[in-house]
């Protein structure tokens, strides 16, 4: 199910699909030096992946803010009363 990066590391030149697989590791600075260098080399040569990487970075930046903006209200007092009722029952 999950992708193993070891095969990618062995490769001399990365494909666009490899770069797409590794893009978050690259942006999160989790790729490691060697892989980082290979990704940068690919980006230097490939305008499609440069654009993709730019778009992923924007996604990473704006999606959390768009999600936070939609946070809904809840009745915390009601939840608290429920917790207290259950605590009393289980202690009593």
């Amino acid at each position, binding site marked *: 199910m999950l992708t193993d990066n070891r095969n990618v590391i062995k490769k001399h030149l990365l494909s666009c699909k490899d770069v797409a697989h590794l893009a978050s590791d690259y942006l*999160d600075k989790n790729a490691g030096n060697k892989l980082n260098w290979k990704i940068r080399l690919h980006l230097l040569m490939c305008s499609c992946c440069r654009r993709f990487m730019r778009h992923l970075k924007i996604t990473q930046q704006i999606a959390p803010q768009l999600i936070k903006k939609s946070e809904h209200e809840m009745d915390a007092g009601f939840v608290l009363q429920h917790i207290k009722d259950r605590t009393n029952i289980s202690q009593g």
Partner: protein
Amino acid sequence: MAKVNTTDYCNEQVLIAGLIAGDDCAFCEIIKRFQHTMLIVARAITGDTFADDVVQDAWVAIYKNIAKFEQRSSLKTWVMTIVSNEAKARLRRESRKVSLDELDGEVPGSYLDGANFTSDGHRSSPTPSWRSESPEELLEEKQLQHCINKTLNILPPAQKAAFILRDIEQESFDDIGNILQVSAANVRVLVHRARLTLLQVIDRFQETGTC
């Protein structure tokens, strides 16, 4: 109930002191702050059926044990770990295993497995251009906000939880791994898949103005 003064609770030490003192306002504050994410974590571990129960059990455990909180992690990480433990315990009680595959099912049209690449790893077509690459402009788009939230809610539960814990709650990959009971490497893959799906939402929005 006393009037809630939320400003004090921006300071975690003040909040924790309030919780230990049994202050209702402090509890309401953490319920507002964490309840939603707790549900998402519970769903990622047990699936939908038991998630509400698990969160209720977790709240009771938090209420009873807050005095024992030693602050070796942040309050949020401690709370999420309790949810995770309650969820695990629930699965054991129900003697039902939920596999990560079930919770991380493929989203149809997934970026890496879809038609975006040829068999030798080249792109089938160029990366689409965007009308706007300005984050400030995109953040003002109400329709995009709607599309992103709609898609977030149909992500597989483990992906949604990993994404929210990482990109919104800013937890470390290791802590998320402990909370969701997967390796940090698997957390990175889950987060990446969620980001790619959201990227495709923006692609579509840029092209059509809709979801």
